[in-house]
C-alpha cells in the first residue's frame, strides 16, 4: 500500500516537472521567436475589416504561389528576403484574402528600421500602376508600412470597392494608421 502511494506520488511529481519544463520551454520559445505571431495577429485584417464573402485564404495551392506556409505569414523564402533586404526592409509578411478559388485582396507589411528607407519604399510603391492603398504605423523600433492591394487581373465593381474601403477605414482606426497614398480609388494622399 505504502509502495503504491509512493509510486503514485512519484508519477505525479514527474508529470508536474515535465509540465513545468514544457511550459517554461514554450515561453522561452515564444520570446525567442524572430517571427512573432502576435504581430501578424495585430496587423492582419480582421473579419470585420474585410468585405463580406472574403476570408483568409486556406488553399495550399494559392498559399504556395505566394510563398507562404500559412496565412498570414512572414516572407521567409530566400529570394523574397533578398529582395526585401535590397530595399532596406528588415521583415515582411503577407496576408491573403478572398475565396478559396482566388485571392481578391492582399495585405503586405514591410518593416523598416529607418524612416528614410520606409519613405523611399512607399515612394517607389506609389510609382507602380496598381490598385494599392498604403498606410504607415510607427513603432518605437521602426516603421511598419502596410499595403493593401487588389488583383489587377480581376474585376471589382463599385459596391465591392466601397466595401473594401469601408473595411479599411475600420482597420485604419483600429491601428491608428497614417495614410500614405490611395491608388485604389485613384486619390493620392500624402
Amino acid at each position: 500500500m505504502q509502495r503504491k502511494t509512493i509510486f503514485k506520488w512519484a508519477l505525479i511529481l514527474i508529470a508536474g516537472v515535465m509540465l513545468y519544463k514544457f511550459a517554461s520551454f514554450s515561453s522561452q520559445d515564444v520570446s525567442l521567436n524572430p517571427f512573432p505571431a502576435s504581430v501578424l495577429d495585430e496587423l492582419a485584417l480582421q473579419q470585420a475589416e474585410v468585405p463580406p464573402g472574403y476570408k483568409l485564404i486556406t488553399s495550399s495551392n494559392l498559399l504556395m504561389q505566394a510563398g507562404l506556409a500559412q496565412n498570414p505569414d512572414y516572407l521567409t523564402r530566400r529570394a523574397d528576403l533578398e529582395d526585401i533586404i535590397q530595399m532596406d526592409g528588415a521583415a515582411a509578411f503577407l496576408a491573403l484574402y478572398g475565396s478559396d478559388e482566388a485571392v481578391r485582396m492582399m495585405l503586405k507589411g514591410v518593416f523598416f528600421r529607418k524612416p528614410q528607407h520606409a519613405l523611399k519604399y512607399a515612394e517607389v510603391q506609389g510609382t507602380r500602376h496598381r490598385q494599392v492603398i498604403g498606410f504607415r504605423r510607427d513603432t518605437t523600433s521602426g516603421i511598419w508600412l502596410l499595403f493593401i492591394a487588389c488583383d489587377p487581373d480581376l474585376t471589382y465593381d463599385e459596391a465591392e470597392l466601397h466595401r473594401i474601403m469601408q473595411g479599411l477605414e475600420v482597420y485604419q482606426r483600429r491601428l491608428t494608421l497614417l495614410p500614405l497614398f490611395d491608388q485604389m480609388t485613384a486619390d493620392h494622399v500624402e
Partner: protein
Amino acid sequence: MKTYRPVGRAVELKTARLFAGALLLLSNITGTGYADESAAPLRREMTRMDRSHRYLSGRVLRLAESINNVISSTVRQEEDHEAEMTGRFYGNLLTAYQVEGSHIRVTPRLIILEGSDNNEYKLDFSARLRLPDLSKRLRLYADSYDTDYDTMEEIFSSRYRKKLEEERSEGPTAGLTYFFSDRMRRQLSLSTGLRFRPEPSPKIRLRGRLRKTFESYRADLAQSVFWSERDGFGEKTEFTLDRPSGTIHLFRLKSSLVWSELSHGVDWGQYGSYYARLSKRRSAALKLGARGYSHPSLITDQYLLRVNFRRRVHRDWLFLEIEPGLDFFREDDFETSPLINIRLDIVIGSFERI
C-alpha cells in the same frame, strides 16, 4: 608675308569690357565645390520647378526600367526573384530601386567671344541608365560628345572642339558599357556602341583605371584603347595627380596623350589647376593648360587660362558655371583670345556617381 593684327586700343577696350561683364555676373554667382554635387539640404516646399524636375526625373527612371524590362524579357531567363502573385498585385519594386542612379545630364552653353558677332551656343547631353535585370555591371550610355580624342576634356575650348569635330565628323554616341570591375581603386570597362555621324558607325573601347594614394597625394592612371569603323584604332593615356589640402583646397596636375590613326602623331595636353571650395554650394578654380601634337614636330598648339566659378543654384540638380578665360592659339600667333563660357548643368533622374 604675315600680317599682324594691331593690338590697339580698340581691342584692349573690347577685352576690358568682356571681363567687366564677367565680373558683374560673378558678383552674383561665385563658385561651387569641386566635389560639385555636394548634398542638397533636406527637401522643403516643392516649387513648380521642383515638381517639373521630379516628373522628368521619374520619366528618366521609368525609361531605364522600361528598357531594362524589354531587354531582359527577351534575353534573360526568368528567375523567380519574387513570387509572381505579389509581383502582379504590387508591381516590380526591386527593379525600380536598382535603376536608381540612372540620369541624364543636359548642359546648355553660351560662349561669349571677342566681338559681338562671335557668340556661340552649344547643347551637350550625357545619359547613364542602369539595366539591373541584365547585370548590375551594365550601363546604357549616350553622349553628345566623345571625349576619347580630347586631350583636355575637363576644360572647354569651343574652337578646339570645333576643329576636332570637323576633323573627325564627330556626332553623338550611344551604346552599352560593361564594368568588369568597378571599385574605388580599380576599374575596367568595355564599351560598345555606335557613333552617329549622322550615319551610325560602330565603336568599341576598353578602358582601365588605377587609383593610388601616397601620403598626401592621389594618383589616377587611366588607359583606353578604342576602335571605330571610320577612324580606326586609337589609344588614350591620362595621368592625374591630386593633392588635396583639407576639404577646401585641391591642386591637380593632369597629362593626356592620344594616339590614333587621325591624330597628328601623338596629341598631348597638360594642365594644372587649383580648386577651392568656397561653401557647400560654391567653388572656384584656376586652370592653366597647354596642348599640342608631335607630328611633324613637337608643337604647342594652344595655351589656355580659365578662372572658373561654379554654383549649385537649386536643390541638387541645377548648377551654374561662369568661366572667363584666355586662349592663345598658334594659328593666331598666340594672340590673346578672351572668352567667357557660361554653362548650366541640369541633372535629371537620380544622380549618383556611376
